[in-house]
């Protein structure tokens, strides 16, 4: 599989989409849709060809800036492949969810979506730290534009806050990357940003701890975890539907991916020392996110805070430092990608129809739009952690693994699942159940287009919930290479 072609393909589709607006107003969204479908087929065919459990699916290396030993070093191992496939799939969801929402500047809108996704694919496949940082920032700018141009009433504030948080934490990571490269240069006399080379740098434990922290802060800001999560509710709420889908579905996962691949992958010992802090932050996020979600009256804000809670499971799982918990974290990333993308899509559809996100102005919507109600129920239940669906598998495995290392924190985190049921059902109750709100007139229910992607996501969640083994096999080789405790 040619990863560079995939990235360049998405980038050029973006440029074509931007200009195709001159041909026809709706040409950009078709181009975007086709690009993501092709990307998804391309990625899954690579998976099917090699099967689960392969060491890696693709590898490409070219020199880029020889002065600093920087290479275009792209590798797809199972973990990367899974997330790249998720990216392509959520690209389709994002395009469909904004199919009729955007009323102006269609070309530039699709351009930004395609460029964010290209950046995300790069983040998941870059094994040169410079290249990784490059993509990390590349996905930021189009996302900023998505919020700043097509966002809702308070978009300027939200977009700027999002950018500042990510960018400043990114600077810390850049600092850490360069220091790591320098210490490697000191020890070996070679300047390189190669991930595999840098994994074996002999570091003083104190130095390693600080460098790990630089990466860690950048990733938990993106994830996000308490206490650096405050950009997320604003960004999610103000973003257009496609923006929220991308943000929650895939951009947050780059943080989780970074923690596993880089913070833990590059500094296993330092991370081990740091494990209790990581788990604590995870448990705090779960409880605090759940608590805040319950107190919201805004549909999107509620889902946004629930994301903070779910992302807590990723931190908890990764820093439990055993195979089963890490697998749980990975499954949570994928399952949360589906369930939250679906919920944001529903939130966006409701806002488009009712022109509000306030749940007090909804109520009894099931009668008006039964298909939307049913979908909301399914994804709320999935997000709550109903057995048989993907989120349950992820959270269960994370808790199971965490229980072996830290019982009190695991107990606290498990309470979070109860909280999730409370806010999830209250969302359902306030928006769709009860007496129909007299101010709400007829609304249009989901059509074929929306239902198709909804059903696809449902299938994904059921599959993850019933038979997660192929996905577990995908991420197993990398997790084993971290040298964490087995089952």
């Amino acid at each position, binding site marked *: 599989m040619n990863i560079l072609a995939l990235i360049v393909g998405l980038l050029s589709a973006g440029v074509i989409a931007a200009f195709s607006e001159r041909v026809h107003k709706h040409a950009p969204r078709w181009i975007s849709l086709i690009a993501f479908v092709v990307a998804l087929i391309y990625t899954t065919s690579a998976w099917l060809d090699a099967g689960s459990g392969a060491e890696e699916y693709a590898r490409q290396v070219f020199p880029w800036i020889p002065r600093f030993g920087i290479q275009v070093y792209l590798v797809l191992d199972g973990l990367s492949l899974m997330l790249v496939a998720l990216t392509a799939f959520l690209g389709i969801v994002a395009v469909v969810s904004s199919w009729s929402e955007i009323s102006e500047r269609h070309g530039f809108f699709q351009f930004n979506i395609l460029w964010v996704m290209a950046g995300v694919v790069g983040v998941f496949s870059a094994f040169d730290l410079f290249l990784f940082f490059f993509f990390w920032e590349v996905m930021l700018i189009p996302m900023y534009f998505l919020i700043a141009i097509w966002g809702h009433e308070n978009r300027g504030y939200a977009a700027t806050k999002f950018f500042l948080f990510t960018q*400043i934490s990114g600077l810390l990571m850049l600092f850490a990357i*360069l220091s790591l490269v320098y210490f490697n240069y000191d020890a070996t006399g070679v300047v390189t940003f190669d991930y595999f080379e840098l994994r074996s740098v002999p570091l003083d434990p104190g130095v390693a701890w600080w460098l790990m922290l630089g990466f860690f802060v950048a990733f938990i800001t993106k994830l996000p975890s308490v206490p650096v999560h405050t950009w997320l509710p604003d960004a999610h709420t103000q973003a257009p539907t496609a923006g929220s889908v991308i943000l929650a579905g895939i951009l947050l996962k780059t943080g989780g991916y970074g923690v596993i691949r880089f913070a833990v992958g590059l500094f296993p010992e330092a991370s081990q020392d740091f494990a209790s802090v990581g788990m604590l932050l995870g448990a705090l996020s779960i409880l605090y996110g759940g608590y805040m979600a319950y107190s919201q009256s805004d549909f999107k804000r509620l889902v946004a805070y629930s994301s903070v809670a779910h992302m807590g499971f990723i931190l908890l799982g990764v820093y439990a430092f055993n195979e089963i918990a890490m697998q749980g974290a990975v499954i949570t990333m994928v399952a949360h990608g589906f369930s939250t993308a679906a919920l944001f899509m529903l939130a966006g559809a409701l806002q488009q129809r009712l022109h509000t996100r306030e749940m007090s102005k909804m109520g009894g919507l099931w009668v008006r739009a039964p298909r939307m109600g049913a979908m909301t129920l399914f994804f709320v239940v999935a997000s709550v952690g109903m057995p048989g669906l993907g989120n349950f598998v992820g959270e269960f495995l994370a808790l199971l693994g965490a229980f072996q290392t830290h019982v009190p924190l695991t107990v606290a985190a498990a309470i979070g699942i109860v909280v999730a049921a409370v806010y999830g059902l209250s969302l359902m109750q306030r928006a769709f159940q009860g007496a129909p709100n007299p101010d709400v007139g007829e609304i249009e229910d989901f059509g074929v287009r929306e239902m198709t992607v909804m059903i696809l996501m449902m299938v994904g969640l059921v599959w993850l919930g019933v038979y997660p083994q192929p996905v577990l096999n995908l991420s197993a080789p990398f997790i084993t290479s971290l040298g964490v405790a087995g089952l």
Partner: protein
Amino acid sequence: MSLAWANAVMPHLVLTAGLMLLLLVVAFRRSHALAMASTVLILVVAGVLIPQSHAAGSSDVLGMMRVDGYAQFFTGLFLFAAIVTVLISFRYLDRRASNCEEFYMLILTATLGAMVMAAASHFATLILGLEILSISLYAMICYPQEGKLPLEAAAKYLVLSGVASTTMLFGIALIYAASGSLSFSALGQPIDNQGENYYWLGQGMLVVGLAFKLSLVPFHMWTPDVYQGAPAPVTGFLATVSKGAVFVVLLRYIVMSDALSNSSVVVGISVIAMVSMVVGNLLALLEKNIKRILAFSSIAHVGYLLIALLVVGALDDPGIARETTMVYLAGYFLMTLAAFGVISALSISAGSQDNEQLADYEGLFWRHPVLAAVLTTAALSLAGIPLTMGFIAKFYLFAAGVQGALWILLWALVIGSAIGIYYYLRIVFTMTRSESSDAPATASDVPMETVVTAGVLGVAVILFGVYPTPLIELVRSLIGTFGA
């Protein structure tokens, strides 16, 4: 006496001869277009001759100038900036001044001064170059006849720049009194105890004088007013060529005279650097005028660049400092000129003041997408976001700073950049806002050549940001020929 050195200074000689030629052209036929075209031609010819004089190897010109790869790189860069300035000034001046032709002579003399500074290895050439540059700039700043702001800016610049020059001259006199030499290379020698105090006092005054010209905090007060008052193309020239030339000569001086062997000089420059990064960025937050924002941003940028200077003291090999400076300034030139190109383009039909308020840029994305894209690129590049040249430049500084173990300065760089992102982003955000009804209608009469120039600069910023290898290789090949 052999005239072999003449080959080395061929670009300087061409520029001098061209100046005479332009004088004659203007005397015979007053035509703005003709004067502009001849100026571009002269600058291009001077630039084309650089490779040829480079092939002859680096040489010492009469003990006053050292023409080496480092000097030649900046000679080329200054000529490039001058060409850009000419192109973006043409229509701008056409609408404002009745006699535009002499403006181009000023650009030529200013560029000549900067080129002399790039090669200066003796205090006499340093002062000569600096004064040629500064005196031309006074006139350029107040060239448009209307409006009080340009006059105010020129007067301010004249007075403060004069003070800086005299401070420097006094410092040089003290250095001369203590060391008996005016050549940079002779200064590294030990001084007897009696003269030592004078010597270091002189060094201090010299640094202060140059810091004035570089508008480093706390000598930065003039910068925002002068940037605001000067016509946009001239501000671009001032921000790039004038500052660049002073920094280039400062680095050469520091390397050759070994001034960083004194720890109080190191501490002094480090403090100035850190304060400039932080204060420059903080003050920019308060501004709503894009020229003033860029003024404060330039203060911060020169502060960042001082890291490259301090690396000289931390490492034995000054090559890294030179390489960093060359890459950084190349990037800084491109993005700053791109930003001022856009401002000039949008201010063509403005009155006595340029269109420089942030509000003037509302909805620019929808009014003039090309210019908005260029300004976005420039702003993101100044903020140091990847995909742009500004990131490569900042990356170089980081790499150099890490190698020199200048941790505190690097933290200041991180903090400064973090603050900076906010105001650069505000420029971008303003442009994405939907158009306000009272925005100046500019889309119709934006001159083509300014748009093309700015567009080329914007593309170059991205191109070198994505694939900087050619530039890095050029810089490294030139450093190899540095005369020790």
